[in-house]
């Protein structure tokens, strides 16, 4: 596997893993039971996708565990967007909406990837993400068109999330190689498709799109520079593993 392909799969997996971890934090705390269940389901899918992608990087079963539980923070390639704490439901819902549309489109594009294992799993992942975006759209539309408070909250969440969401499409090391080898058509193409997809939904939800030209993407994650939230997240995740350095299996 070339370093470019490794990097591409790793950053895709890291996004899913960290967002899955964040979404799992809603289990038991949602605004109503059905949402606890929905966020827990989506978290399982995301962590499951990350697991399969990690295994693609190294078939050895222990390798995925090492990537998840032993790797240094600077070696993670996730974007800042997924690292943010769950905050209130408005933020988590907006992140889920913006990220999962990008994720679904990414896998749709990857179905034609020249790298067969990615094309194979992309088909499966895409099918699951259909339900994630359906869920996100349902609640974005209802809360955007809900009452004064929900509308204001969703608008603020959108304004807050967009610069972070643009970080999903940050250029990464080896991207040109990935494009030229027909592994993936590129982040720029994905971003265009994503905007095309989300704009009408945002409009139907009665929300205003900020002027994209004024937005500065929150980048750095793809190059190992992270927000202040990633290190504490990893520390918490590894609390048990770190306390038992001799343990082989759990």
């Amino acid at each position: 596997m070339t370093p470019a392909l490794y990097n591409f799969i790793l950053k895709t997996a890291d996004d899913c893993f960290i967002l899955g971890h964040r979404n799992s934090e809603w289990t038991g705390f949602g605004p109503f039971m059905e949402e606890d269940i929905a966020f827990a389901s989506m978290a399982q899918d995301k962590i499951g996708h990350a697991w399969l992608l990690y295994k693609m990087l190294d078939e050895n079963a222990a390798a995925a565990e090492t990537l998840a539980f032993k790797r240094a923070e600077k070696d993670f390639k996730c974007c800042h967007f997924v690292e943010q704490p769950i905050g209130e439901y408005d933020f988590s819902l907006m992140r889920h909406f913006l990220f999962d549309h990008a994720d679904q489109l990414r896998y749709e594009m990857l179905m034609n990837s020249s790298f067969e294992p990615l094309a194979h799993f992309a088909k499966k992942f895409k099918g699951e993400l259909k339900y994630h975006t359906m869920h996100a759209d349902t609640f974005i539309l209802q809360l955007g068109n809900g009452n004064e408070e929900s509308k204001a909250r969703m608008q603020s969440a959108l304004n807050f999330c967009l610069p972070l969401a643009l970080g999903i499409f940050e250029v990464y090391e080896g991207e040109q190689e990935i494009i030229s080898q027909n592994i993936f058509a590129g982040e720029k193409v994905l971003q265009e498709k994503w905007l095309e997809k989300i704009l009408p939904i945002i409009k139907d939800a009665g929300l205003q799109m900020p002027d994209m030209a004024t937005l500065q993407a929150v980048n750095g994650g793809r190059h190992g520079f992270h927000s202040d939230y990633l290190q504490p997240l990893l520390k918490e995740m590894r609390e048990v593993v770190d306390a038992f350095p001799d343990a082989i299996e759990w």
Partner: protein
Amino acid sequence: MYGNGYISPEETAKQKPDPLAGEDLQQLALFEERIARGEKIEPQDWMPKEYRRQLIRMIEQHAHSEVIGALPEGTWITRAPSMKRKLALIAKVQDEIGHAHLLYNAAETLGKSREAMINDLLSGKSKYSNVFNYPATTWADVTVIGFLIDGAAIVNQVINAKGSYGPYCRALERICYEESFHLKQGHDALVHLAVGTKEQRAMLQDALNRWYRPIIHFFGPSDKASVHGTLLMKWKVKMASNDDMRNQFLDQYVPKIRELGLDFPDPKLNKNAEGVWEFSDPNWDEFFATINGNGPCNAERLAVRRWAEEHGRWVRKALINPSQKQVLPLS
């Protein structure tokens, strides 16, 4: 996960001297004949007021136990020590919330809304299983809960699934299927600790020591002498005595723990010649203190639920569409 229909002292005090006063005796006789024949009672059927009241109380307590039961294990989701354990634990806790969902629906068929039940939980009026007022201090606690508390809950729920109220029995049947998977994942995680390093094993034994008493308390105090029990048993609201269920549980699970070379911290825990398990006095005062709000985690558990309730209020408010009103309960 749920212990048993525990009747608090206030509940007993509220009980009228004659719970059947004012009932149509002819209808009552038909009702009792149906139950004796093994028929299920459905929401639209005639039922005595006391039957309805007791079932609401019991199903509601069960639902609350699932919601609160998600919390001690839920705090370990972000710390589960491998990809497999992480996925399994999210799925498991998700199931518990799903059980609450099924049970609130079943209780709603008897005329109390989910909102009213949740309000009673948050105000401290309704009870839930005592066992969830203890902290899950280490990862080993998660495995002990998954194996032993879920195991105990299955004993209770399999028995209650043979009860008389249709919607509750159907919910319990589905819950039991899912709980049997919880048991497997709990057992698998517990065995991994038992055969792991010295430190992993010590963590597990420590968890067993701490959970022993809450597990003995799980089925509630001895109720063989309870007058209250007789009517509920006749109506198949309560299907077995607390002692019988506890005994069945100990019989199934103590050997499984001892097989692993581990034990519970009670030298008197043994099966006597009649096949009945004996154990030291588990301090029922502690049980009553905990059920009445003075256990180690009561305040914290309710505070977490209140947080979720308050922070989610704006969402629920915005989603209410007055033109769409649900008429019939779903269950």
